[in-house]
């Protein structure tokens, strides 16, 4: 049982606040750290990895401080986002060097390379690897000492679907074995497929925490806004406003369009085409006006 505890932690760079009074506890199993780009995910992971001092607050591993404490790396394995990784070495040389730095030998390196299924290319130079291969070798270097905690910063970036699935399987297995696995992502679907527990970070703040389904429901149940253009906007507005799934309709004269606020996402999306067909109205534009991840997240922060 290994737990990373973040206690009222903030981190600022100059006068930019990257992480703002975050408290969370990351325990065994797979946890997804979800948030838009620039939300502070990397800063948070860097503090958990001991690469960055918290400006205030504490980040601990089973009660011991992580910053300036190199003994924590006996328990932590890290897969960084950055690509720099001794490109002049072969994959095997790289993983062996990582094993040696842990006081281990070739056997541990071979096992880690087998775990990530990179034996077939282990004698090629890292500089010749694809993004996905590099990612897997990084993974092997992090697994070489059989750590109880695994921290991964945007591990799926640039991977093709097959590599993504393989890595997800591997991380699921690690979580099921009782390891504490934390990965960051700005893609909802990745987190949904892999993590049962998620932590949402938006603009440096801890926006939500808990079971994925609960948070997903919060996300889909929120009011959605659409911009709709049709052959007869007024008739369409009249037909839609009668339904309880529609909370408000605004006729935007300058845009020559309707701005519709829907409260029941599922119902509204089936209602709109049905109503249009029944009334002989042609839909010209249906565009969600707040579907960006950022707006979904800021809704969560407000909720």
């Amino acid at each position, binding site marked *: 049982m290994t737990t990373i505890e973040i206690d009222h932690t903030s981190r600022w*760079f100059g006068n930019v606040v*990257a992480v703002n009074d975050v408290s969370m506890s990351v325990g065994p199993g797979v946890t997804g750290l979800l948030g838009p780009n620039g939300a502070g995910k*990397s*800063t948070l992971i*860097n503090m958990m*990895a*001991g*690469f*960055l*001092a918290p400006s205030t607050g504490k980040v601990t591993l089973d009660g011991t401080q992580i910053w*300036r404490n*190199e*003994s924590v*790396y*006996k328990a*932590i*394995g*890290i897969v*960084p986002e*950055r*690509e*720099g*990784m*001794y490109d*002049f*070495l072969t994959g095997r040389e790289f993983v062996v*060097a*990582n094993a*040696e*730095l*842990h*006081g281990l030998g070739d056997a541990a390196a071979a096992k880690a390379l087998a775990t990530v299924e990179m034996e077939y290319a282990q004698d090629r130079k890292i500089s010749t690897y694809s993004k996905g291969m590099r990612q897997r070798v990084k993974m092997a*270097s*992090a697994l070489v000492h059989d750590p109880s905690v695994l921290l991964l910063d945007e591990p799926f970036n640039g991977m093709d679907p097959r590599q993504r699935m393989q890595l997800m399987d591997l991380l699921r297995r690690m979580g099921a074995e009782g390891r504490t696995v934390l990965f960051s992502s700005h893609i909802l679907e990745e987190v949904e497929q892999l993590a049962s527990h998620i932590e949402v970070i938006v603009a440096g703040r801890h926006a939500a925490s808990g079971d994925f389904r609960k948070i997903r429901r919060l996300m889909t149940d929120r009011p959605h806004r659409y911009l709709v253009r049709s052959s007869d906007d007024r008739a369409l507005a009249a037909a839609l406003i009668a339904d309880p799934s529609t909370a408000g309709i605004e006729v935007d004269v300058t845009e020559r369009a309707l701005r519709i606020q829907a409260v029941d996402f599922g119902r509204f999306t089936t209602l709109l085409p049905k109503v249009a067909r029944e009334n002989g109205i042609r839909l010209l534009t249906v565009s969600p006006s707040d579907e960006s991840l950022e707006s979904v997240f800021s809704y969560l922060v407000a909720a």
Partner: protein
Amino acid sequence: MYDPTVARLTYRALLGRRRAAILFVLPVLLVAIAVAVRAFAGADDQVASGVLGGFAIATMVPLIGVIAGTGAIGPEIDDGSIVYLLAKPVKRPTIIFTKLIVAVGVTMLFSALPTLIAGLVLNGNGGQIAVAYTIAALVASIAYSALFLLLGTVSRHAVVFGLVYALVWEALFGSLVPGARTLSVQQWSLSVAEKVAGDGLVTSDVGLPLATVLLAGVTVVATWYAGQKLRALKLAGEE
């Protein structure tokens, strides 16, 4: 205090980069100059001392020190690969000390050895000149490596600062402003050479006791401080 894996990664990175070409070019140039001077001027103690002091010690040793010292750590910090060393239960001072040993070894190999060869070519070690300058190069290699390793740890522009120090401070100010010579690795190492060489062939503005203290002091303090800086190295540079 010494980690063979860190050493292996360091020297492979150091000798594998394009920058390493300068490591080979400068010594070749020195030996070529020595061969040419010997051929045209014959064996002359003053001329030999001029070439070794003016080119080998004043220019080549600091330049190689800059490349080896900053190159032993700077690129790893720049591209982020240092995280694979830092995310290990290895003491930070061990990483720095190991990198220092590698940088010193490389600097000695590419500066002291060519100095000895050039000295032998120039006047066959007459007046102990070849040995004296070789000892100066060996001593300077240690101090330069420590100094530039520290620079590589604290600054992303270590090579530029290193070159400014080596070329502007040591070569230019050192020859124009007498006071600057007291704070010059070159003068300290020449002070050691002065004791070895025949009378008046090597001169230094710094006395041997002071030079020894300064050489040792700079090396120890720079290495210690680099270790401290590495302990607090923040890797979140791109945010």
